[in-house]
């Protein structure tokens, strides 16, 4: 009966069969896996003693179809027996409805968890500093070619549908915001405001600022809103205005860098005086107009606290319900023991 007496063929066959057993459903394998392996080993020993390798080959020819068929059948039976989620929920609901101890356990745990969540949210709301909100509105003109074409040529220039969204990204870009950080010394001011004795790096300040700025389009207009939130209403307003100013300067710098190229290009291909249908470009000052500068407003409190409070209440209710369910389940398990 000992394994030492088994031939290599038997040992290898049993090892292979052990691997094949892994394809059966877990509960079936747990219950009968060891017995099946032992039975197969017995079969292998008999087959080997009768016809050595040939006997094992014949045995495998019988066992392989049996394995393929029965592993599939066991999985199908498992699927058939498995309770649907709907049935489980229905059963849990009925148990909750009919069994008073389960109800009591649920309500007890639910109440404790819910009260904890409410207390935490209230503490967080009190502890968090107020945030003020300030918004600057700007009007942005699209870039026009320095040498604009009149008549039929003008119609060939199609409008850019992504112009405004591109400008949003430019306003939030590192180049614009670092100008603001340097000009307003935000690395020092924001660090001090957040309890740091040493100034932040520009990158740290940029990351902080980026999460407190939002750039959006004013509904049904071409105006851009630059909104900033900060613990100080004055600082929120100055940052919003500085961002608008930095963006305006960026557009002017861009225009200046390409100034004269268009006309020079026309002159390189044409001779004589410049014709009348070449329309001179608008002065660059109107490319970005400050429609509404931001002002400090003590009433514009960002609803962060109420959002946090509501989120905690909502999440707390869900958490409490889950915990209550867990409590009821534990109560049921202990009653079954």
């Amino acid at each position, binding site marked *: 009966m000992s394994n030492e007496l088994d031939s290599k063929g038997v040992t290898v066959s049993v090892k292979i069969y052990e691997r094949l057993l892994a394809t059966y459903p877990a509960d079936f394998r747990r219950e009968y896996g*060891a017995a099946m392996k*032992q*039975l197969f080993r*017995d*079969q292998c020993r008999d087959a080997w003693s009768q016809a050595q390798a040939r006997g094992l080959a014949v045995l495998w020819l*019988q066992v392989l179809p049996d*394995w393929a068929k029965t592993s599939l059948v066991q999985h199908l039976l498992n699927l058939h027996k498995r309770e649907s989620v709907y049935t489980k929920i229905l059963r849990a609901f009925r148990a909750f409805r009919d069994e008073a101890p389960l109800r009591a356990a649920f309500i007890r745990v639910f109440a404790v968890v819910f009260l904890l969540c409410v207390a935490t949210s209230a503490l967080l709301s009190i502890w968090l500093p107020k945030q003020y909100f300030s918004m600057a509105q700007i009007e942005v003109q699209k870039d026009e070619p320095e040498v604009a074409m009149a008549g039929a040529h003008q119609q060939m220039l199609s409008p850019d549908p992504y112009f405004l969204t591109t400008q949003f990204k430019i306003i939030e870009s590192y180049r614009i915001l670092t100008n603001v950080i340097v000009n307003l010394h935000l690395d020092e001011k924001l660090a001090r405001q957040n309890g740091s004795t040493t100034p932040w790096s520009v990158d740290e300040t940029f990351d902080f600022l980026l999460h407190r700025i939002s750039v959006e389009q004013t509904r049904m207009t071409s105006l851009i809103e630059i909104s900033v939130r900060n613990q100080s209403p004055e600082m929120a307003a100055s940052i919003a205005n500085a961002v608008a100013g930095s963006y305006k300067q960026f557009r002017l710098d861009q225009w200046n860098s390409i100034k004269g190229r268009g006309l020079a290009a026309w002159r390189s291909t044409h001779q004589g005086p410049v014709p009348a249908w070449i329309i001179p470009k608008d002065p660059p000052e109107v490319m970005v107009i400050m429609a509404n500068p931001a002002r400090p407003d003590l009433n514009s409190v960002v609803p962060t606290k109420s959002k946090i409070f509501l989120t905690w209440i909502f999440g707390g209710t869900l958490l409490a319900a889950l915990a209550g369910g867990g409590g009821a389940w534990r109560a049921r398990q202990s009653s079954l023991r």
Partner: protein
Amino acid sequence: MKTLNINPQDMLPLTPAVFHILLALTEGERHGYAIMREVAESTHRQINMGPGTLYGTIKRLLEAGLIEESDRRPDAKLDDERRRYYCLTGLGQRVVEAEASRYNELAKLARRKRLLGKPAKTIPAGGI
């Protein structure tokens, strides 16, 4: 398990594998490999069950209350004490008897129809 009120007739007909396993257990407790060998020998190797079929059927029979696992463990010197032995339950005994009786009735019918008891047809020399 409430098996006393179950009518054995309701569980018929049995599949050949189930019937042969129950038949193998009528003579007493047996472990899986002994059942398999008994079935193979009694059917002249016409029914060769693999381990999957045997234990799949044993699982069904245990769930139906026709067999049960025996507490008996063999002497470790004579046999592997990890082997699991199975025996018929009261219901299993009644079901196998009912199935045997059904086969008996079928055999009687076949005799009346002269399908049984006739000598086997012989093939004439030289082929058909």
